[in-house]
């Protein structure tokens, strides 16, 4: 069985400067991999390259075995890939319901089952579909990003610093929903995080990105936190 995501020697960047250099990382179906690292080390660039917003200057990106290098973002999303960016991640002027509806593939109209499933974790989704998304609290906006990403049961979830600025109770709930969805549908997750505690609590494996290269990787076991901390403190 091929990997849900295979990042194979990818180099990418902006203009002349390469932010990522020969990055190799793969995520098996049903696996949660956390990408950790300090600010400016290339974590967000990695997700943007996987999604196709940034071209890979070298290397290949494969999604469920299919080489998608060079294809536009909407075609990658169509391969059951959900992406939750860090910045400007919701349509503020649209309603909660419209934000969710945009995640449905063309031709699919019914999202009631998905909303009921996710409302078990985020109850406001069911009752506030007509509210403008920009008027949600910061935590609710993050929950909306997560719900929109999970609505259609993707095979691969790419999520960028979802816990940033959130209170611990919301972070706990986000961790619960990732674990539950993984158990229910075997979703693979590539999680970019600054919050090492949260990341290691949901991940099977971790990778540390430093200056655009994978500096360390390993299982998210009892020693992982100490090893990651050593890299982040440098």
């Amino acid at each position, binding site marked *: 069985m091929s990997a849900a995501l295979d990042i194979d020697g990818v180099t990418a960047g902006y203009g002349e400067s390469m932010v990522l250099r020969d990055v190799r990382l793969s995520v098996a179906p049903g696996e949660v991999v956390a990408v950790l690292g300090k600010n400016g080390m290339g974590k967000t660039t990695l997700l943007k390259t996987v999604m196709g917003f940034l071209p890979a200057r070298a290397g290949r990106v494969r999604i469920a075995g299919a080489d998608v290098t060079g294809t536009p973002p909407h075609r990658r999303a169509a391969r059951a890939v959900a992406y939750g960016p860090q910045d400007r991640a919701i*349509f503020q002027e649209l309603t909660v319901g419209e934000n969710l509806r945009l995640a449905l593939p063309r031709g699919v109209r019914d999202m009631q089952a998905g909303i009921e499933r996710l409302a078990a974790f985020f109850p406001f989704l069911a009752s506030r579909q007509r509210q403008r998304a920009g008027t949600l609290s910061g935590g609710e906006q993050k929950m909306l990003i997560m719900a929109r990403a999970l609505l259609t049961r993707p095979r691969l979830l790419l999520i960028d610093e979802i816990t940033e600025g959130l209170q611990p109770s919301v972070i706990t709930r986000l961790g619960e929903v990732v674990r539950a969805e993984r158990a229910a549908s075997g979703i693979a997750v590539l999680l970019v995080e600054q919050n090492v505690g949260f990341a290691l609590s949901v991940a099977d494996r971790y990778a540390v990105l430093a200056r655009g290269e994978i500096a360390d990787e390993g299982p998210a076991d009892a020693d992982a936190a100490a090893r990651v901390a050593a890299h982040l403190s440098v």
Partner: protein
Amino acid sequence: MIGLLLDVATTAAILFVVAAGLLITFGVLKIINFAHGGFLTVGGYAALVVTQAGGSPWLAAPAAFVAGVVLGAAVERVIVRPLYSRPLDAILATWGLGIVIVQLITLAFGRGTNFVPSPVSGAVAAFGTDYSAWRLIMLVVAVLLAAALAALLQGTRLGLEARAVIMNEELAQGLGIDSTRVRFVTFALGAGLAAFAGALITPLLSVDPLMGVPWLLNAFMLVLVSGTSLASLGLASLLLGGAQVVISTYGNPVLGALSIVVLAAVLLRIRPAGFARG
């Protein structure tokens, strides 16, 4: 007085139809389409061709709409799409295209002024006054069109995708929306609206190769003060179009013709967001 109010309403309605096409194109593609006046002229000549070929004047506007959509689709595919990553060049290309359209029409039809017969003639009693029957029909058509556009944007999947692309194109793409397709459909629809408006006004105005120029100018200024909101555009059309009618009626038609451009420029000076929120 009733006549003046009806003049304001019909002028605003037709301005709205012309500017709406320019506005949705601007919102989705992030470029001002300076060939919009050219598309409007194509609509006027489509009306001329249809009626001269013996077609009913009622067919003029629908035929112009179809011609505009087909032309817009071809232009988007051949000229605009290759310049997506260079918006300034795309704007210049539409400017050049507008000039080419005028020249081609001049070659085909000559510089002369033409007249298109009206589907209806004379005046009817309305609101206690006698008023041009065609202007009343135009008003109804424009209001129906505005309602249809609003329904398209608010009530359909394509409309939702278009609004998403207007607000944040990259986020929309990440959710699986083919923004290239949304741009294509929007540009074709915008061109169709321009041509439709061009045919709609032919019973009132003569058809000549430069007929689109004043409409382009006015629509451009209206879009500048309205941002990407159709509601703001409706308000701007009513207020600035109303000012144009009042100034033309009680002042002087030359000043009236300039009033939208001048008032919009003044408004933008005082309030850079214009009628748009924020």
